[in-house]
């Protein structure tokens, strides 16, 4: 199943990205590119609607992390530099709290399991629906 990325402006500096399909090593860079484009157009907060995402590979975690970096004006990993560069990425969570740039909506059980198992879930506030997420950004 391919990945569909639907983008809606939500007012101010916030955009909604709705993912449908499967996010894997073949397509994770398209999500990073979408983030770059939104940041260039002024977006600083993203509500990432995962309700339609049925599969999240470890490479998709790199895309989620990259969105945060992009919205902070930092350089995301360059896949052209190879997987060694991606593997060396780090995210400082010493502050203990979640970040504010990307909020998640309604991850399916399979996707939530990946976020839990990798510890990445502690980076994100997760909401049951889009309206609750928009009220939180």
């Amino acid at each position, binding site marked *: *199943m391919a990945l569909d990325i639907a983008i809606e402006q939500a007012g101010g500096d916030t955009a909604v990205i709705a993912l449908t399909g499967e996010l894997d090593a073949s397509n994770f860079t398209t999500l990073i590119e979408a983030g770059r484009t939104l940041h260039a157009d002024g977006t600083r907060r993203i509500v990432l609607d995962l309700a339609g995402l049925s599969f999240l590979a470890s490479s998709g975690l790199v895309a989620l992390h990259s969105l945060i970096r992009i919205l902070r004006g930092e350089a995301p990993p360059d896949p052209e530099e190879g997987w060694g560069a991606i593997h060396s990425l780090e995210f400082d969570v010493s502050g203990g709290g979640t970040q504010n740039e990307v909020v998640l909506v309604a991850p399916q059980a399979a996707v939530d399991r990946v976020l839990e198992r990798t510890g990445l879930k*502690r980076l994100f506030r997760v909401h049951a629906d889009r309206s609750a997420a928009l009220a939180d950004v």
Partner: protein
Amino acid sequence: MIETGSAAAPGVRTIEIEARLDRLAEVRAFVRSSCAELGADDDCVVDLVQAVDEAATNIVTHGYAGRVGPIQVALAPSADGIRVVIRDRARAFDPTTIGEPDLQSARLRPGGMGVHLIRAATDSMTHDDRPGGGNVLTLMRTLGRREEED
């Protein structure tokens, strides 16, 4: 190419693809349908789809590293679950030697979680060199929800 059980290997379901990232979705669909045929529940299906995807991704990106070659995935019923055997002709790459990430660290590393996810989704992972060159990765998964997550 998908094959199902023969007299020599009853119940075995096999797919062989060219090692390309754009073939991963095909492999995941094969694992889903094969697991269902073998009586796996949703938890088991989700885990094996994840584990096989991560293993195949590693073969494409680290094993073949841009070169062309085959990946064969075979699922078969075992005594208490499903055995998955993944064969390639890539350079030697043993994921069982990759250390576990420190998930409690103050510095999360979002990249390189693939092998960790394979371990988390399966009961065992073993690697053997393949006669004639390449790798044989064997994953075992019991049916049902795994005890450590109850």
